[in-house]
C-alpha cells in the first residue's frame, strides 16, 4: 500500500471542511501514519482496485468505502477508530475546532460562576414549597 493510497482512504474518512477556521483533511493534518498503515492494509485489500479508487471522484470513493465497511466491518471499524483518535488528537484539528492541544490537566479550564440573577431565580423555586412526599 502506498502512502498516496493510505492518505486517499483517510481523506475520504476525514475530508475536513471549509468552515471558519477550516478543518484540515487527514492529509493536511500531518498525522502520524504508523499505526494507520497497518490497520489500513486489510481495508485497502478489500477495495481491490486501488488505482480505480485513486482515480475515482470523492463521491465514488465514499461509495467504495461504504461497500468495504459492509464487506469487512471489523477491519473497517478498527481503521476508523484509530483514524478518528489520531485525527482528533492532532493539534491542527483541535485548533480548528477552537480547542487546545494541551491535556485537561494541570491547567484545567475556566467556568463562569453562578450569577446573581440566576441565584435570585432560585427563590422562585424555593417559593413553591415542599415538593417531596413521605
Amino acid at each position: 500500500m502506498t502512502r498516496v493510497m493510505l492518505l486517499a482512504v483517510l481523506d475520504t474518512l476525514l475530508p475536513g471542511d471549509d468552515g471558519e477556521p477550516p478543518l484540515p483533511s487527514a492529509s493536511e493534518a500531518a498525522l502520524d501514519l504508523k499505526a494507520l498503515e497497518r490497520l489500513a492494509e486489510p481495508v485497502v485489500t478489500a477495495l481491490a482496485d486501488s488505482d480505480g479508487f485513486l482515480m475515482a471522484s470523492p463521491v465514488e470513493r465514499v461509495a467504495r468505502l461504504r461497500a468495504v465497511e459492509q464487506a469487512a466491518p471489523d477491519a473497517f471499524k478498527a481503521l476508523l477508530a484509530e483514524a478518528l483518535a489520531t485525527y482528533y488528537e492532532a493539534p491542527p484539528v483541535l485548533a480548528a475546532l477552537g480547542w487546545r492541544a494541551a491535556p485537561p490537566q494541570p491547567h484545567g479550564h475556566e467556568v463562569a460562576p453562578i450569577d446573581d440573577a440566576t441565584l435570585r431565580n432560585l427563590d422562585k423555586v424555593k417559593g413553591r414549597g415542599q415538593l417531596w412526599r413521605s
Partner: protein
Amino acid sequence: MASGGQIKFGPVDVAIVGAGLGGAAFARRLASRAPRLRVLCFERGDWLDRANLPTQKPEWQRLALGAWASSPNLRLKAGGNAISADYPIDDSASAFKPLMWNGVGGSTINWAAHFPRLHPSDFKTRTLDGVGDDWPFSYFDLEPYYDLNDEAFGVSGLPGDPAYPPKAGRRMPPVPLGRLGAKAARAFDELGWHWWPVDAAINTVAESTREACNHCGPCLLGCANGAKSSTDLTYWPRAIASGVGLRTNCVVQEIVIEGGKATGIRYRDGSGRDCWQPASTIVVAGNGIGTARLLLASGIDSPALGRNLMFHPAAYVRGMFAEELDGPVGPVGCSVYSHEFYETDEARGFKRGVHLQVTRENALLTQASRLEPAWGAEAQRLLREEFRHSMAVLVTAEDLPEVHNRVTLTQTMEADGLPGVRVEYTLSDHSRRALDFGMARAEEMLRAAGAHRIQRVPLAPYTGWHLLGTARMGGDPATSVTDAKGCCHAVPNVIVADGSLFPTVGAANPGSTIGAVALKLADALVGAAP
C-alpha cells in the same frame, strides 16, 4: 476450607471485601465506633497513582475509550488496566453495560461525583404507590448517616432545595453552572419547573491536601488534583490511621462457610499465593455484580441472591445551539438538575418518576466516535455543529425490581480464580414509558432554551454505573437476601454493605445512599447509635 500449602493468617474480628464506597464507609465507621475491633479489608485492585492519570497526557482522549474506559470489558479489550483488577462480564443479554472500577476507592475513582440523596418516598414505594417494596427503614432513619457521609465526602451545593427535606448546609459553594447550566436554569424557570444546582462530592474550595476543582472536565478518568472525592482520599486515610488494615491486589475467592456460619475468607494475594484469613464477621461490598458473584460462588443459598438487578435506565436528549456553550469543560455530571417529575403522577402512565440532569459534554473524540454517520463530510459537519454548541440532558428513570433481571455465574472459570459472571437485564415497558416521558420533558426544556435541533438517544447502553438490588434487604428470606442490618438470612455473620442491598433505587444516583447505609450497618454491627 483451609488446606495445606495455604498461607494462614491470625484471626480478625471483621474482614471486609472491597475498598469501594460501601466497604470504606463501613471500615471507617467501625474503626471510630469500636476501635478495639481488628478490621481488615481486602481489595482486588490497587491504589490510584494520581501523578500518572490520563488527564495529564496528550493521548487522554483515546485512553478514555480504552484502558481507562468506564467499562471493565472495554478496559480488558484494550489490554487491561494495571490498577483496576477487572474481570470479564458477559453483558450480551443486558440492555445496559455494567460500568465500575475495581481498585481502592471502587467506582468513586471514576464516578461523576453527582451526589443526590434518595427522596423520602423512595423508601416506601409499596406503601405510597403500590410498586416495588418498602425499605426496612425510612429516609429519616437514614438521615443522620446521610449527614455523616456528606461530612466525610465534603459536599458542594446550595441549601434550600424544596425537592428534599431540609439538609444540613453544604460545606462548599456549588460547582459553577457555566454557560450551559445558566441557560438550562433559565429554561426551567421559563417553564415553571423545579431546578437546582447539583450536590457534588467535589471540592469547590481547597481543603487540607486536596485542591479545588479546576474544571478540567473528564471526571470519569480519575481526578488528578484530588478535588473529586473518592474513598481513597476520604474514608481510607482516616480508617487506616485508626488501625484498619487494607490489603490490595488480593482477590477473595470464597467465603468459607461451615455449619451455617462463615469462618473466614480464602483469597489469592498479589503474588498468586493461596491465603486463608479467619474472621468472625465477613462484610461484602463489591457492588451489585461483584458481591452477587462472590456470594454465589461461596454457595450461599438464597433464592433472591443475584436477582432483582436494577440500574437506572438512562436516555439522553441533546440540543444544539447557535451560541457557544461549555462543551467538555467542567465536571461532567455537574450542572443543574430537575426533580419536577420525580414523584408519582399516575396521569403520566407510569408510577414513580424521572430525574433530569443537565450534564456537560464528553471529550471531542468521544463525541466524534458516536456520530451517525460515523465518517465522511456529514459526520464532520455534525461534529462542527455539536462541539461546544450542545447541551445534553440525561434522563434517568426509577427501575423497579424484577426477578428475571439478574446476575448469574457461568461455567467458565476466569483468570481471577472465580467463576465467570453473566448479567441478564431487559428494559421493562414501565421503564420505557418513564424514559419516553422524561425525554419529552427534556426536549421541551431544550426547546425553551433555544435549541435549533434535538437529538434523542432513547437508550444509552454505556450508563450502567448503578449496580443495585442483587442482595436486597427485607424481612422474608424467600424474597430478600439480608435483613435490615445487612446480615444474610442464610449466613447471618456475612453482611452485605453496598448497593446490592437496595430494595428499590429511586431515580437518582445511589452513591450518597450507599455510603449512608454502610455507616448505618456498621453501627448496627456494634450496637451503636448515630
